[in-house]
């Protein structure tokens, strides 16, 4: 039982890392909290519902299409909102409200167009039988989602640490002003990071119906809190720390569900508050506070 909880915890941990990594990338580069992140995930879930369940496209194609769509939507969204936000007195605090407004708009439009019904996708549609793990079985869909998450996280690593674009992105994360001073085009790099973050959220959304159960247009806010908890554990602004945060979150969620199930809903909130109070910079963080 314990071994099973740990194994499924790792699978879910990889998935939760994917859920959070886009929000963390955006925070790391722009120092803003994207509260529309959960709604991008919701859009990805709709993408899976139509493209995979409706049209029957193969899952890898659905993943690529959803990533590309949200990536391309993220670029104009960045130019529309973020540069202007930075002219305000407290961009970080106001970003919470601004992106909450955006999330309301997305939620309302989706609900108007497609209704508020709960939608789900049976996990057997992904194919494969139950996979035996530690004497019990897990749905093939979980293993599939865990695998895709790992691939996407590896992609983030390559993007950030093995390309010129990634080096410029990390320069902005480290020292915004100096990055400007050495001639990096801040807005171009940030817009790409925003697009990548949105695309990653959409990919997480493709697998949300399998990992998190049925979905509605209004699942965004709770996903925001989950994402924030995951990335705060790992450390805000460090995209790869998200992997550690996701694993810790996934394993402790599965342990709670196994041994103390009625309080499992409390977990993300308590973990978030606990980590913030004990080590606000996250487990891998540098010092960022200045008061």
């Amino acid at each position, binding site marked *: 039982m314990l071994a099973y909880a740990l194994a499924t915890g790792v699978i879910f941990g990889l998935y939760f890392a994917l859920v959070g990594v886009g929000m963390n990338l955006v925070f790391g580069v722009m120092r803003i909290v994207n509260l529309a992140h959960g709604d991008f995930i919701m859009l990805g879930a709709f993408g899976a519902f139509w493209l995979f369940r409706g049209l029957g496209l193969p899952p890898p194609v659905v993943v690529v299409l959803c990533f590309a769509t949200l990536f391309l939507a993220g670029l104009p969204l960045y130019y529309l909102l973020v540069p202007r936000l930075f002219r305000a007195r407290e961009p970080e605090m106001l970003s919470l409200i601004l992106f909450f*407004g955006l999330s309301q708009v997305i939620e309302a439009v989706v609900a108007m167009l497609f209704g508020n019904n709960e939608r789900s996708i049976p996990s057997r549609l992904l194919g494969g039988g139950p996979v035996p793990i530690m004497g019990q079985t897990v749905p093939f869909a979980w293993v599939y989602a865990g695998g895709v998450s790992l691939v996407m996280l590896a992609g983030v690593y390559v993007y950030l640490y093995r390309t010129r674009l990634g080096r410029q992105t990390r320069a902005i994360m480290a020292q915004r002003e100096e990055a400007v001073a050495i001639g990096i085009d801040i807005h171009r790099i940030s817009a790409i990071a925003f697009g990548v973050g949105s695309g990653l959220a959409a990919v997480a959304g493709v697998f949300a119906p399998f990992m998190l159960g049925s979905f509605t247009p209004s699942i965004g806010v709770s996903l925001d809190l989950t994402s*924030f908890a995951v990335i705060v554990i790992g450390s805000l602004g460090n995209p790869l720390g998200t992997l550690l945060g996701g694993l810790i979150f996934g394993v402790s969620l599965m342990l709670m569900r196994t041994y103390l199930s009625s309080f499992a809903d409390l977990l993300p909130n308590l973990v978030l508050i606990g980590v913030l109070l004990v080590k606000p910079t996250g487990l891998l963080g540098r010092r960022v506070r200045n008061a």
Partner: protein
Amino acid sequence: MHRLFLRDIGTVVLPLAVLFAVLPYFYDNGLLLLNFVVFLVLAQGLNLTYGFSGYLPFGYVGFFGAGAYGFSMMMTLASAPPLLAVLGGGVAALLVGLLLTPLLRLQGAYFGLASLAASEALLHLIGNPSLQDLTGGPYGVRLNTPYAPQSTYVLAIVILVLTMGLVAWLRHSRFGLQLQAARDNSLAASMAGIDIVFGRLVVWLASAVAAGLIGAVFAWRASTFFPDAVFDINFSIFAIVFTLFGGAGTLLGPVLGVMLLYGLYNAIGVSAPQYFQLGFGLLIVVLVLFFPEGLAAIPRRWARHG
């Protein structure tokens, strides 16, 4: 008493209280009037902490819910008289506020989201099936309080006057000016010998108590409610947007915000919630991008250019 403080009381707080006191004679939807007062208190209560210390609690509704449950538990477990139970609601919110004071060490978005997580945690704790004997759990609360529309309405107005009185005092008193200095530049303020931590703590607890008291009044009037209803994050969001729309740190701004936006909500939000949500979302975006200091700053901006 300071002259400007008395001017604020005389020109804003008392006329507003009188207006709401006579409105029931002309307009018979008492519940709607009460809801207006509830949101006025929440907006001004949030204004206490956001307007004067810069901390934006996304989980502000946690105090409202704590007040509602403090009230109902005083009624069901201790059979207290309703007035005493309303005070109990304030005390419950005060205790939650004290418990959460360590959050004030956090800054910016960290604080906002941590307070939201705290209010969600409180919701899951109170709504937990294993605490059903104590709180009613997920099945909600059914109170046998006497239905008293007039007393609850008058009580709400009294709480509103006290909250707005406090805002007016903070705008002009020495203590309030120190707080505003600390909000605008905490380093310079502490160099000048201002006790920043104490000031922030006072407004934080005061805003908690305001939400708790009005939450208790809300519970009295509703008498039957579910945990989701009194911990609904929309209370926080409405209070934040109303305050921001009018202008945080001002006395009249949050009042304007509530009157215009909550009025709009009742005009279209109830019959067409999705259109309201869309409009509300767009309004928030426009507000933050173009008027981050609210309506109250517009005349000031004109004066500067003119």
